[in-house]
């Protein structure tokens, strides 16, 4: 099993840290992983993206041009990455701020209204709601390993926030809905 994921959105949405939690969760599950960020000028105030690969085999290329799953959190990323989802793959997005919704008929499309939900409680849990949505539609990681990945990723001084983050993951799992039937 190999899962090749792109997570893309604005800088500050927690794209890179969400990818890191996914990668660490993969390690906790005994998988091979890679995490490759965009680190160019675009991350300084613009778009940010990270390629995460989880596999039961050693990862060859950390850089890809097609993805099993695209997690898309702004319009620029939708325009760029929707065409790069493999046929039969998954596109998960937050429709907040999206002006052109995904159109492909050969992939499964899911929506998680994470920004609106996070605004009700704590904007910082936005990315964990999205992560919950992903874990619901692509249940390749055991939740206990995700919890362990969270512990590994968050600095210890922030460990009191783990219950809040786990709650956000559960919220995302409930919120996510399928937009089209493949």
């Amino acid at each position, binding site marked *: 099993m190999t899962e090749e994921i792109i997570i893309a959105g604005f800088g500050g949405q927690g794209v890179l840290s969400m990818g890191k939690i996914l990668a660490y969760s993969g390690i906790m599950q005994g998988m*091979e992983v890679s*995490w490759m960020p965009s680190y160019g000028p675009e991350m300084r105030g613009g778009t940010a993206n990270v390629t995460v690969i989880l596999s039961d085999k050693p990862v060859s290329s950390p850089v890809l*041009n097609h993805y099993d799953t695209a997690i898309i959190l702004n319009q620029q990323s939708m325009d760029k990455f929707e065409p790069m989802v493999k046929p039969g793959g998954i596109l998960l997005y937050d429709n907040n701020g999206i002006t052109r919704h995904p159109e492909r008929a050969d992939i499964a499309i899911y929506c998680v209204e994470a920004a609106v939900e996070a605004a009700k409680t704590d904007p910082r849990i936005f990315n964990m709601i999205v992560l919950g949505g992903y874990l619901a539609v692509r249940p390749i990681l055991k939740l206990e390993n995700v919890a362990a990945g969270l512990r590994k990723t968050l600095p210890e001084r922030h460990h009191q926030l783990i219950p809040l983050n786990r709650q956000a993951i559960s919220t995302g799992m409930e919120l996510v809905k399928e937009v089209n039937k493949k």
Partner: protein
Amino acid sequence: MKELRLMKGNEAIAEAAIRAGADAYFGYPITPQSEILEYLADQNPVETTGMVVLQAESEVAAINMVYGAASAGRRVMTSSSSPGISLMTEGISYLAGAELPCVIVNVARGGPGLGTIQPSQADYFQSTRGGGHGDYRLLVLAPASVQEMADFVALGFDLAFKYRNPVLILSDGVIGQMMEKVELPEFRPRRKENESWATTGKTPGRERNIITSLNLDACIHEQHNIKLQAKYRRMEEEETRCEAILCDDAEYIAVAYGASARISRKAVEQAREQGIRAGLFRPVTLFPFPARELKTAAKNAKGLLSVEMSAGQMIEDVRLAVDCRIPVKHFGRYGGVVHAPGEVLEAIKTFQV
């Protein structure tokens, strides 16, 4: 089982320097390698192993601090990215001329000039042909994973002291910035022994040690150069390292190092799925280039593809390795653009028409 950590290549190289028993690191920030200095400053190893970490006022200052510490026989490392390495090349030439051991890390970015901050492999000529003035070579290691970023630091120090020569770890923005799981090497103590050649204060019973790259007598300097060349030939005999994957029955072989080797490996897997007999040859040392090993690996090949994020630099060594008897093509995006596996696969397929 050892603890597995998820780390960036840059962080791994920094942690590995502490664990390799380095005495000192001198550096100056530049993207995409700044995490090396940041990580070391954060760890503050002077409190634990006694390793000195100092942000110099410039790359020129950093490399000359390296010269000083190396003259005292200490394990010393510096790091930079392409434009910063260019600034250091005068000092690197002096280090090579004075036969001083050190580890230099280049996490390369797109050039020429200030270029871009994105990954590149366009420093191959600079790295493998010396870089600065004079007839000298660096021993060049090319890591292709975060694990190798960690492992090559101690190896680099060992080779640097074995040959009394600077060792260059030539990485790129992909390997420096990506995170993978890494098993960190064991801690090694810092060196206690004094090198017989080092300038550590003259003791009775031996001549003064003089560290210099200057000789006013050309005949003496020619002899020094002949000695250096003999050293480089010995490296070519003893230190080539490489990895050959699926080359035995391969009709087409991608030759690639660093990030391009990882990307090409995926292209080779995809080619095999499509029934194309492709292989990957990965030089791990760039100088000495594993020419004999490549010649052997390519004995059944009909075409070699030099895949590098440059306009084609390593391709010259690839052609020389096979005496131009097999068609050799170049493929690579450059100037900071990273090629995707699919692009490499298409380039492999061009041999079939």
